[in-house]
């Protein structure tokens, strides 16, 4: 049996001397693994970089087999970000999150499309970090843990929302949340409106999404979030303290 699909390279691990076991986020077949013959070699190494957009053909005798991928490069997403320290880390973090959070062979066309939109956004120096946080919010929704940031969980009001409950994932207004402020997560304004995303807001956004990815994500309690995401948070945090902004760092 075989199928053809569009995919994004999430990871490639060398197998034997010249082959590689590759994980792709395909549009119609979800996260899918397959063996690429020659994937560990010089010719294919550039194609199998995380983030690269490919056209793939999967073939196997039986559905439950690992199968073989034939992969053709459509667009090299990684190459254009190689010189950009933090956007490159964000690309690695996004691929690692999708690779670790989603089950295999479960179609999530939205995740595939959103990932491509994120890669486009990572090339924009002024707005990429806010776009990354928004992408993690969408990722949580795709995982079934969508945050409800439209109204206050306690009073139902739709304005002055500045907190998020770490248990329910619902927004809380400034007045209702004041007595519990130490236990609530800050809600940066750029996630619910047109407020600008300053360095501190991006860090608050990452803390918010990081909390729910770590506690409610499929890998909860099994080693936390991927190291690439930790490196992104550390890098953004360092940039925020050493300069006035983080976008384009």
């Amino acid at each position, binding site marked *: 049996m075989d199928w053809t699909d569009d995919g994004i390279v999430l990871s490639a691990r060398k197998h034997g001397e010249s082959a590689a076991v590759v994980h792709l986020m395909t549009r119609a077949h979800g996260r899918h693994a397959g063996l690429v013959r020659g994937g560990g070699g010089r010719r294919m190494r550039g194609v199998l970089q995380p983030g690269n957009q490919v056209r793939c053909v999967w073939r196997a005798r039986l559905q439950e087999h690992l199968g073989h991928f034939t992969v053709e490069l459509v*667009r090299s997403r990684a190459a*254009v970000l190689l010189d950009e320290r933090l956007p490159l880390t964000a690309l690695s973090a996004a691929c690692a999150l999708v690779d670790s959070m989603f089950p295999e062979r479960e179609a999530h066309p939205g995740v595939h499309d959103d990932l491509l939109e994120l890669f486009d956004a990572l090339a924009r120096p002024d707005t990429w970090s806010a776009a990354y946080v928004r992408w993690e919010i969408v990722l949580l929704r795709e995982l079934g843990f969508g945050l409800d940031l439209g109204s206050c969980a306690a009073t139902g009001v739709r304005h002055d929302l500045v907190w998020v409950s770490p248990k329910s994932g619902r927004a809380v207004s400034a007045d209702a949340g004041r007595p519990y402020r130490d236990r609530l997560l800050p809600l940066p304004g750029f996630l619910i409106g047109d407020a600008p995303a300053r360095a501190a807001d991006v860090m608050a956004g990452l803390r918010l999404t990081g909390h729910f990815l770590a506690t409610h994500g499929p890998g909860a309690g099994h080693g936390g979030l*991927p190291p*690439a995401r930790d490196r992104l948070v550390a*890098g953004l945090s360092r940039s925020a303290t050493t300069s006035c902004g983080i976008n384009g760092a």
Partner: protein
Amino acid sequence: MPDPEIERLVRLLAKLPGLGPRSGRRAALHLLTRRETALKPLIEALTQADATVGTCSVCGNLDSAEPCRLCADPERDRDTICVVEGVADVWALERAAVFSGLYHVLGGVLSPLDGVGPDDLSITALLKRARIPEVGEVILATGATVDGQTTAHYLTDRLADCAVTVTRLAHGVPLGGELDYLDDGTLGAALKARRPF
């Protein structure tokens, strides 16, 4: 029934890079039929290499001298350290004979998938070397891959406290490359890194 000793030899040879069971058998047969000219010199060379070749405590290169011949060579430029992923990269640069400085072998790149973190690489030793007053430049020659460049960016951060200029190898059109045959990523990187001519 094949001899178990020959089978063992074939099995071990077949594990070498570039060889498989069939070429392992050919190599074993070649060695066993040319004992004086192939097998014994090979045994001698392997024994000698096992006894003398080690990892240089300064740069991480493989050599029978300690420190290695490259580190001990007074003719080499001590102002520049070229950071590479592995010993094979040192050999490649030495073959090209285009670099006369010192090397530092990291021992890999940051790779969360393979469980390689900063502590698994020779970073502390690099920082120590970069703080030597006569060192003025550190060239990051890691691969043009996501992991390679992530490692390079990480090293740039760590080297920020050292009084050295951090540079990296250029990315772009290879010698003899025609634009028509290049992938869009390489073309994009080459265009981005264009310079006055």
